[in-house]
């Protein structure tokens, strides 16, 4: 049995490299090189024999894609597993990559709804609202939050993953914690998405329908039914089109076109 253990300095090497997750982000294997690079300080310490190092590097150059923050947790687990393996524990290559693949999907989902869909939009809208009045505090809060928040997340998740290490499989098998967090994050994401659509999306019609002798403005009628009916309708239209595999860029151009046509024919305002 070997006695390899990562020192504080070597762990800090993994820590700063965890920010380079998307360095070689590509269409074929997404973050494969990023993951391998993060692990280099650990791998070169654990595997002194060239053969073992080659095996380890090749083991991690496989398809990998996850959320930046929660991905650090997987990186931590990988460091712990490689440590065990190099110390003589019987851990198969397939176990290491199996854990990676089993966790990256759910974690990416949690990260997307919790961080991209909830935390980030809240602070983006908050700071933009402050800045739109010409208030410099909006800028300062944005700078502090979006600098410190990623660092704190990378630090916490990396170290937590390292601590969990190989026990992660038992933890997952013995409790349904991953499912619970995933479904909880989805609920928060759904509630915030609903709120954000109402708060952020602006769409009003200026159309006037004339029938008989009278003119009826349309927007007050919509407001009677449900305020923000148009933003909600737009959301569902976009949702439907994305499900039909229409690319976001085309949708973006369509929205621009809708705005221009709406302003030109004077039915949006």
């Amino acid at each position, binding site marked *: 049995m070997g006695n390899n253990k990562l020192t504080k300095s070597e762990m800090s090497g993994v820590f700063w490299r965890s920010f380079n997750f998307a360095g070689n982000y590509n269409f074929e294997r997404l973050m494969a090189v990023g993951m391998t690079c993060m692990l280099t300080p650990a791998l070169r310490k654990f595997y002194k024999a060239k053969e073992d190092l080659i095996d380890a590097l090749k083991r991690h150059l496989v398809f990998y894609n996850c959320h930046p923050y929660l991905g650090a947790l997987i990186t931590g687990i990988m460091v712990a597993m490689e440590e065990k393996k190099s110390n003589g524990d019987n851990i198969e290559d397939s176990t290491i990559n199996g854990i990676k693949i089993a966790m990256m999907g759910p974690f990416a989902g949690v990260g997307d709804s919790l961080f991209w869909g909830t935390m980030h939009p809240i602070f983006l809208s908050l700071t933009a609202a402050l800045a739109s009045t010409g208030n410099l505090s909006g800028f300062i809060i944005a700078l502090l939050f979006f600098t410190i928040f990623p660092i704190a997340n990378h630090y916490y998740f990396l170290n937590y993953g390292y601590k969990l290490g190989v026990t992660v499989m038992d933890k997952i098998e013995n409790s349904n914690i991953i499912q619970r967090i995933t479904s909880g994050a989805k609920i928060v994401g759904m509630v915030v998405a609903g*709120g*954000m659509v109402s*708060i952020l999306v602006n769409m009003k019609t200026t159309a006037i329908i004339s029938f008989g002798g009278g003119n009826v403005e349309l927007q007050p009628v919509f407001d009677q039914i449900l305020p923000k009916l148009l933003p909600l309708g737009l959301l569902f239209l976009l949702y439907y089109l994305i499900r039909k595999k229409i690319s976001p860029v085309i949708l973006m151009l369509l929205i621009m076109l809708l705005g221009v046509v709406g302003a030109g024919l004077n039915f949006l305002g």
Partner: protein
Amino acid sequence: MFGKALMVAFIAGGWELITLAISMIPVLSKKDNVVTSWIIVILRGLSSAMSYSPLIVATLTGMALGDVKTGLLVGSTIQLMFIGVFIVGAALPPNPHLAAILATAFSIITNISQGDAIALIIPIAVFSQMIITFVMTVNTFLCHWADRMAEAGNDRGIDILNTLNTSGWWLGDTICAFLGIYFGAPLVAKLVERIPAFVSSGLGLAAGMLPALGFAMLLVIISSKKTWAFFFIGFIFATYAKMNAISIAILGVCLALIIDQLTQSKATIDNNTTNTI
């Protein structure tokens, strides 16, 4: 103009060279220490902030060109436009980073109106996305190079490649910011004169509708038949009770905790019932 273009290019990504230079110390020497690592981490934190929030780069551009207020105003508009537009899964969205910088700089240098500045944003953002797609294609080839280095056991080579690669992402924006300001500013002033008023105001309307796109993209991933009720709870509370983003988030967390407790206690009851039977 040369000096201004250089300053803006530095904000757009030129300063990444500093991070790269410091990163190369542990990479080339194969030795990490805690102090260097933290310096890199803080610099990387700042680059994360710049890529997550267009307001930050817009304000910095405003500071560099001597008009902070325009930076704040243009930045906040772009930030709201792109608030829901984030990378979900592997789908690449248009990127507002370069657009925020150029729109702010053009507003200040050529004195165009804010509405016209917005007209420039979406084309630039789509252009940025094309740069990203191009970089990802190049990266695909570099990925195979990494394979060969792994075959030779060259761990430092992979480390160097990925570190250079990380800084490479900023290269496109840096060059475009420089060229855009140095050559583009007079052109933009002429171009904007020719844009009809209804197009500018129409693009302003589009800016208000755009946030729906990002949330639609997110919903495609996280929604299921059982969770749509929560979407409408959030929507109704924000619409009728005028709750703001933070209170909506707290509401969401409370609902998630309640649902979790309910399902947990149901699971216990189910277990107990099965046991007694």
